[in-house]
């Protein structure tokens, strides 16, 4: 199970652009919402920075990828929630504010309790792509039965292949992030 603070950091990070849009739409209409959305957007940006810094600070391991599948398309699932700022009608009534807050909290719980936690448009904007991989320790015998569980991998590359050996850190039990050095090597090479 992923750590709580990582999940909430990813949630804030993931919805930082939506908070920003809500804030922009609220300017001149409802100051409280604009300020709250602005704070959440800043927190989201900070959370992204803290998440990446924390993940990169961990010692990595050398994994061999038995299976590789790109999951960038999952990011599109966010399009629906990003429409929220455009359908909001700000009347200033407490019911509007309460329902908006309840929606964000509900979204948060759904987010942290589901596998969509790793689908993060902000990380996508930063160049990270989401992969579903089955990794084993580089050099380990490939299991005949009971293959290892799949993990998600964040990597700034568009090229990963079966059998490839990568260096990655384990952020949570089922999320890896590829080392900065290898990501940089890829970006230099392309």
């Amino acid at each position, binding site marked *: 199970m992923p750590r709580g603070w990582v999940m909430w950091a990813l949630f804030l990070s993931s919805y930082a652009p939506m908070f920003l849009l809500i804030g922009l739409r609220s300017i001149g209409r409802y100051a409280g919402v604009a300020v709250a959305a602005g704070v959440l957007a800043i927190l989201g940006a900070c959370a992204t920075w803290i998440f990446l810094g924390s993940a990169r600070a961990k010692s990595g*391991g050398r994994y061999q990828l038995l299976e590789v599948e790109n999951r960038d398309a999952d990011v599109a699932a966010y399009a629906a929630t990003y429409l929220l700022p455009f359908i909001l009608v700000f009347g200033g009534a407490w019911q509007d504010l309460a329902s908006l807050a309840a929606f964000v909290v509900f979204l948060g719980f759904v987010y942290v309790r589901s596998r969509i936690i790793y689908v993060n448009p902000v990380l996508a904007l930063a160049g990270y792509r989401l992969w579903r991989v089955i990794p084993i320790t580089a050099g380990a015998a490939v299991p005949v039965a009971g293959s290892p569980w799949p993990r998600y991998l964040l990597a700034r590359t568009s090229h990963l292949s079966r059998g490839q050996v990568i260096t990655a850190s384990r952020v949570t039990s089922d999320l890896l992030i590829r080392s900065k050095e290898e990501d940089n090597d890829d970006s230099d090479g392309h």
Partner: protein
Amino acid sequence: MTATGTELRGSLEAAVADPRVTTQLLLAWRRSDTAPFPPTYRVELVDLDQGVAAAFLAFAALAAPVVDRGNVIPYDPDYLLRAGECFVLPKSDWPGGDLFVQLDDFLNLARFMRRRLTKPRLYVLAVASEKGTAFFGKTMGALRVLSQRSGVFAAVWDGSTFNALAESVATFSSTFDWVIWDEKLYVLNAAGFHAEFRDIKSIRQAVRAHVEAITSGTLKIINSEALITRCQANVAMASKLQRIAIEGIQRHDIDELKNYASEYGIAVKWDGESLVFEDTFTTQWSILTLLDEDRTEGPVSHRKYEASSKRVIETTA
């Protein structure tokens, strides 16, 4: 008896010095301390900060030269290795129950998550590079886990004030008991290695059978119950007894044994054709010294030596 140690050893030093090397820490607990040997282990992967990983890697770099260039001593569980010496065990001879099997895919082991750190049996450092993965192991018997609830009061110094320890803290050594590299297990610290992987319990349990085997021929031992009790209390004696039962000189003629003891000053007491075990600090080893033929003579200098650890060699004419 010291080999040069040049056979089939990889360049571990180069692997550890690889700039892209990765370092991981594993903690291992025995599933049950009372289960029969060999034990089974629960091994967990610990998240390491890169700074801590670098510190561990520095320790591994210190151990690597011993493996690469150290003197290889033929494996003898009773021989205490000196600095720069090591035993080498091929994969077929590795002890450790399921521990080493689990190390194969160590990155897929469960993460160490528990808030309160209970004392592991051992820790293993996995150092991986393009050249392969080396494992550096250390028994945690002599190391400490300090926690709020432990018997000692632990405090941390922040530069100006002592603060009570809020979390459990493990202490680690800068040396290792054993290293695995290139499918070979190098034992660097025999005492630490055997403390974890040798079946001390069964060696103690076999003492009586070994004494009976030794005395099943012409040679008898008076006060053998005291010898059994003493050997059961002392693993080194029990281990030596085991070797004597297999390849000791107890089947030789009694007069031959008496002459040997007399000529080489082995302080055994005889009662007719029987040895008498004297349970004193100075004489408790005498019978074992005699039957393991510990005292010998150099063929050139004709000096007399005591060699408690030895192995049979084959010479060519």
